[in-house]
């Protein structure tokens, strides 16, 4: 049973993710309505909007985490690195290897710090101690954690503070060398100092990869993102350059939201 075509992602283009006329239903509930947008390579795209408007849902369609949800129907196309990921032949595992994901609440595995980071590489067959050690070190460095944790790699990840746990989760996602990093309100459960560290980190990471971040926090979106997408009740109301959206939004709803009149 040889597969004739094999999934080949190509991230050399200007656009990393392209969403076209995407509609998503949870059973009869229409959660995403005709979404069209593009995420530029080596840029940070922020998804904003009041809670329940479909930000997380969109994020999860990008790495097909919605496959797990019963009664979830998806129409339209999502292209990642030139590949239509909802094509039947797409290797979901390989897709996810290219799409790191960081969740709202830090969710380290109940293992040591080392094993948490080595989990992804081991999934893809890295076994050699020296290789793993290198990956762990690089990932922790990339997540600005190495100096804090290098002497306690074999401590339980659960013993870390919330902010450290979240950065560990970022390091864990980076360990499989993704091209795109998806972050779902990564700082909403953290204190301001940890939040600052993660924002700093995002700026650094975009040199290497593409970041899509969901955030509840308008200032955060304005501070760190290059592009912003504003959602309301499952619709993409406005999408474009962050500075422009915050300075002179085209739609009234956007203006209302960013000026804090609802949400």
């Amino acid at each position, binding site marked *: *049973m*040889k*597969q004739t075509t*094999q999934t080949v992602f190509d991230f050399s283009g200007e656009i990393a993710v392209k969403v076209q006329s995407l509609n998503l239903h949870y059973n009869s509930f229409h959660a995403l309505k005709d979404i069209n947008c593009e995420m530029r390579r080596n840029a940070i795209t922020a998804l904003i909007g009041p809670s329940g408007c479909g930000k997380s849902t969109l994020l999860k369609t990008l*790495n097909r*985490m919605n496959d*797990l949800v*019963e009664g979830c129907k998806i129409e339209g196309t999502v292209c990642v690195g030139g590949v239509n990921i909802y094509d039947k032949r797409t*290797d979901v*595992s*390989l*897709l*996810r*290897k290219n*799409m*790191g*994901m960081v*969740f709202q*609440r830090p*969710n380290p*595995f*109940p*293992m*040591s710090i*080392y*094993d948490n980071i080595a*989990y*992804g590489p081991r*999934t*893809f067959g890295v076994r050699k*101690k020296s290789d793993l050690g290198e990956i762990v070190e690089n990932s922790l460095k990339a997540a600005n954690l190495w100096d804090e944790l290098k002497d306690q*790699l*074999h*401590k*339980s990840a*659960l013993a870390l503070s919330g902010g450290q746990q979240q950065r560990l*989760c970022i390091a*864990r*996602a980076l360990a*499989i060398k993704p091209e795109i990093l998806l972050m779902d309100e990564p700082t909403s459960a953290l204190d301001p100092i940890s939040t600052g560290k993660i924002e700093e980190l995002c700026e650094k990471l975009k040199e290497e990869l593409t970041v899509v971040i969901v955030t509840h926090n308008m200032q955060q979106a304005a501070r760190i993102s290059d592009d912003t997408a504003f959602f309301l009740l499952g619709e993409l109301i406005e999408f474009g350059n962050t500075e422009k959206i915050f300075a002179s939004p085209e739609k009234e709803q956007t203006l209302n939201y960013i000026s804090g009149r609802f949400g």
Partner: protein
Amino acid sequence: MGSNSTKRRGDVAAKVVFAASAAFSVFAVFAIVFYIIYESIPALSEIGVFNFIFGTVWAPTKEFLAIPDRFGVLPMIVGTICVSLGAVLIGGTMGVFSAICLKAFCPKKLKGPLVAVINFLAGIPSIVYGFFGLVVIVPALMEIFSVASGKGVLASSIILGMMILPTVTSMTKDALDAVPSSYYEGALALGATPQQATFKVTVPAAKSGIITGVVLGMGRAVGETMAVMVVAGNVAAFPTGLFSNIRTLTINMVIEMNYATGLHRQALIATGSVLLVIVLALNLGIGIARRPKKYREKKRAAKLVAEPQPSAPPAFVKSGRGCTVLKYLSIVCVALVALALLTLVIFILVKGLPHIDLQFLFGESGNEGMTLRPAFVTTGLLILIALAIALPIGICAAIYLAEYSKRNSRMVRVIRLFTETLSGMPSIIFGFFGMLLFCEFMQMRTSILAGGITLSLMILPTVIRSTEESLLSVDNSLREASLALGAGKLRTTLRVVLPSALSGIITAIILSIGRIVGESAALIYTAGAVPYEPSGVMDAGSSFAVMMWLFASEGLYIDYAYATAAVLLIVVALINVAVWLVKHRLAVKAFGSSGKRAERKTAKIKEAK
């Protein structure tokens, strides 16, 4: 690159293994039922089903050949029903009231200890209950009622009542906990006192759960063997009074099996079929009664609270005194339960501890003195064999139920029903099944191996339930994190979810050990009942409980029986403590140790460099 499709094939194969393990309970129940019934066919066709079930004379041995219908089990059926109803009357009522007290009227500080008492009662082996009945309850009844023999219906009912009480209490408590507290609060808001709210609103709303618990308890009473055998008197006749000596179906099976041959033996197996049918009918009754009613009752209770009549308060005021009486009754029940446990424990420890010494525990067992060493060896081997079989199957089944199937799909419900049925099967049925299938048909003879395999079937439901529960409690975000890292379902399950569910698996192991240490009826005809030390798994051997039965049934060794009972109680206590520790402490500790192991590993690597 074929790695992708091989990975997928591995995933599929794993899923098949998990599904097959989950289906194993269904298979086991069918195998037991059909095999026992199949083996009963010769007797039933020779004697005639009607004659067998409604025959009133049981005279199975050769010297009664002249009697026409000498294989009738009706006295045993009546005896079984009699003591089971007695047990429900005593243990069921007290169990329900105890649960109500625990839920509504017990000071918070006492709740923990009282729940521990109930759990402890649940863990005490049948044979210890029987022995306690023999040395405490029977003489006490003789004293109180000044009768010549205290054995019979009443003594059996009391002992069985004690044994089913924990089941009834915990089921009732679950049912009461499931009633939305808004009902209770609503009633209070209408001016009801706490006891009125409890007895007029909460308890009626939990009715179906309570009935389920009582029926389940009744099922246990019907299937109980060793405990009643010691106090029933064992005469195969119809009961005529509280002190009539009677014989239950289970007793009939166990006491005559070791010398029965030919038709007699077949008739004993057919007795097993009758028992099986009664137990299955009770189980089926529970299955049917459970669902549709619940909804109706909830609605009614909601109505009680939501729509008071225009002349509302009287409904509560009128019944005020009755509810207060019920409240004190429930407190008395809990006190009695605690007192009963205390009596049992103190009596046995006082009589037993003085006879425990190193020689008795670990010394060579021989003519000059019997020891518990053979029981240690046998029980250890039984535990190893049973766990080696039940753990993999049970964990795989739990994985299937929790991770691979849709919640509450029909398939899951069927598997759950059969798992519960398996856990509700009487020990003696397992014993007969093991004897017929493993010892005889598979020619393992009476051996520890056959006993261990039989036990593995008995502990399987515990393993499945405990593991499944803890799998379901694993935070879903861990699964998501693993999948988002590109790991497949199988790797996610084995590497992330299962290790997080470790406490459930350890709990399952501990509970299984408790069950095995205390088991007797299932072992007498599979692993054997011999006092000497086995030299391998193909030898016969006695577990602790069987050894205690040997000691108790030979008048010479009554001190040994007390001592063994004391050992068993200590084991039960340790098991309860261990389960508690795992539940409350493990999460942190287990991780700490694996972390340390990893630390040592890297230390080594560093050295190597």
